[in-house]
């Protein structure tokens, strides 16, 4: 999968035959996103796997090999920590086990050949059908020294959404981790004050999860409960 893994033809979500290593995140039935109205489209029998680009074998090309080699050299537990490396669309993603994430980030920041000294924050992604890897935290890093950009991805199960905090390595992750906790419910252990940041303090649920609806939530305001717009009293 060194090339041709972009799948740029329309309907590119169909998994190419050689991509066994691709990370399957769901299965799509039918077409046009139609559900519950009977098979009016004629495509109801269609079943397709939805998969993210899979792990890339060596060589990665460009500076990616050099970075991976350096990380392997400075990190004794490299084999333990790194689940795989994905090179896709000219960007490098290192998938890391959660126990090792702080160690990996520390190495990425401190080694002179890596020097990813600036964190661009954490963003969460929810894959409800990726069993035991439902919640992903994606760390974006930038090296000002070498003018490079890198992604570190950590997956945790929904039943145990704990990741050690990276604030000791990157203080800027403070608010970003709070935001990811707020919207996805990923708990960053050891964070100095892991509270909600954008939603109200007493908000129930984590709104960016896929099972959380868009709107339609009753809201409590000044002691009164305001029903969602479609359930309010009408005067017509």
């Amino acid at each position: 999968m060194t090339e041709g893994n972009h799948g740029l033809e329309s309907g590119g979500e169909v998994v190419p035959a050689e991509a066994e290593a691709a990370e399957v995140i769901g299965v799509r039935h039918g077409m046009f996103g139609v559900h519950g109205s009977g098979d009016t489209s004629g495509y109801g029998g269609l079943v397709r796997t939805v998969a993210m680009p899979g792990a890339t074998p060596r060589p990665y090309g460009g500076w990616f090999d050099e970075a991976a080699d350096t990380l392997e050299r400075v990190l004794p537990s490299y084999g333990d920590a790194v689940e795989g490396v994905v090179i896709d669309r000219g960007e490098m993603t290192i998938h890391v086990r959660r126990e090792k994430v702080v160690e990996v980030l520390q190495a990425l920041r401190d080694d002179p050949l890596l020097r990813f000294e600036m964190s661009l924050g954490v963003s969460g992604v929810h894959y409800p059908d990726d069993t035991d890897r439902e919640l992903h935290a994606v760390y974006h890093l930038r090296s000002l020294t070498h003018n490079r950009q890198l992604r570190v991805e950590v997956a945790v199960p929904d039943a145990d959404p704990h990741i050690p905090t990276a604030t000791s390595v990157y203080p800027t992750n403070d608010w970003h981790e709070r935001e990811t906790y707020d919207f996805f419910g990923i708990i960053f252990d050891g964070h100095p004050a892991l509270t909600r940041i954008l939603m109200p303090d007493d908000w129930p649920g984590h709104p960016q999860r896929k099972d959380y609806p868009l709107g339609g939530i009753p809201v409590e305001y000044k002691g009164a409960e305001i029903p969602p717009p479609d359930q309010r009293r009408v005067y017509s």
Partner: protein
Amino acid sequence: MSTDNITFGSAGAAASGPVADAYAGSRETTEGTVYTVTGADWDTVVRGVSGGRQEHVVVNMGPQHPSTHGVLRLILELDGENVIEARCGVGYLHTGIEKNLEFRSWTQGVTFVTRMDYLAPLFNETAYCLAVEKLLGITDQIPERASVIRVMLMELNRISSHLVAIATGGMELGALTAMIFGFRERELILDVFELVTGLRMNHAFIRPGGVAQDLPPGAVDQIAETVKKLKSRLTDTEKLLVDNGIWMGRTVGIGYLNLSGAVALGLTGPILRSTGLAWDLRKMQPYCGYETYEFDVPTQTTSDSYGRFLIRMAEMQESLKIVEQCLDRLTPGPVMVEDKKIAWPAQLALGSDGMGNSLDHIRQIMGESMEALIHHFKLVTEGFHVPAGQVYQAIESPRGELGVHIVSDGGTRPYRVHYREPSFTNLQAVAAMCEGGQLADVVVAVASIDPVMGGVDR
């Protein structure tokens, strides 16, 4: 130790307690006495607080305070005039834009993201479109004219955003003339935006694959005219503030944060460049053809509010240079990608009943080609598919690195869109810049960060 809480600006608390005052009501809570001050009766507060019980006062500045740049709430612990602790309360403008994006097609997403950082809407749109184009793998198929229009609009937008930063910053310090000048000049740019995109803000003009529509007749002349006017008028602000003793007295050495502090806190934009590091993504990670334009990256080494002000002034001049180069490069050509599976099917045109799909296109889909009609319908209602994967695309917005992380599952809607907002990240510096300083300097430091709450809260 018990502390007293003071809320500025929120009216309506009943006046009760030891000192009944129409402007400074107070009530007892478990945290201590809470005073709500809406008028000029500071004396009343001081009398009430100075009961000898404690030395620190917690002041809630905002979220409706005129000098906190929108709905930013600063929670300040004060010892007299000195700030012991400064914290930010954000989220008052959260509208769930990132969540909404997951329920609309890729093209419709532009309409949402433009509403994030409302002073730099064209940057939000460009960052999103560049990321979608990267996912589609069509980055090098974007027509030259579309890229030039994008760069031109972004640079005009940078000027208008910096003008507001300086105008509101000036107003908060009492320099009302700076405010008048800033908003007057910004109006010139908003007129250009209105002519080109139809709207003064929330444009949704830059679309995946190009831009929504070509420049209207007369736009090039008006932009050239505006650049000429701005050149002379920007010197007005410069003469007013750059060597102004009062302005320097308020901003020099205030809001200090050095390079290592800025990198640790992830600060970018004028704050990072005020520490002496010439880090600008337009130079370091060029996009939209920025590597072919000639411009400088202004820096300062003072790491303070005054340095950031000087950088913004200089950046506006550099942006004018880029806009002039864009005007020279505007050669006729398409403004949307060739690929008919991605490109929006019709260009807009002005008809007798206002702006709409061009008559030629209507004639074709309604009278000549059934396939064209089906194609139009599918592309507009369902949208195009984007191959599965994730990308991170960053651009240099007026406030720093504006990054977009987009995940696609191969469908016609984004699976997840995350904005790495420079305002959100930069606001974390408030504590580092303000603690240990004076209350009056908090306003200066926050103004030099230039947060836009629409971007912070999204």
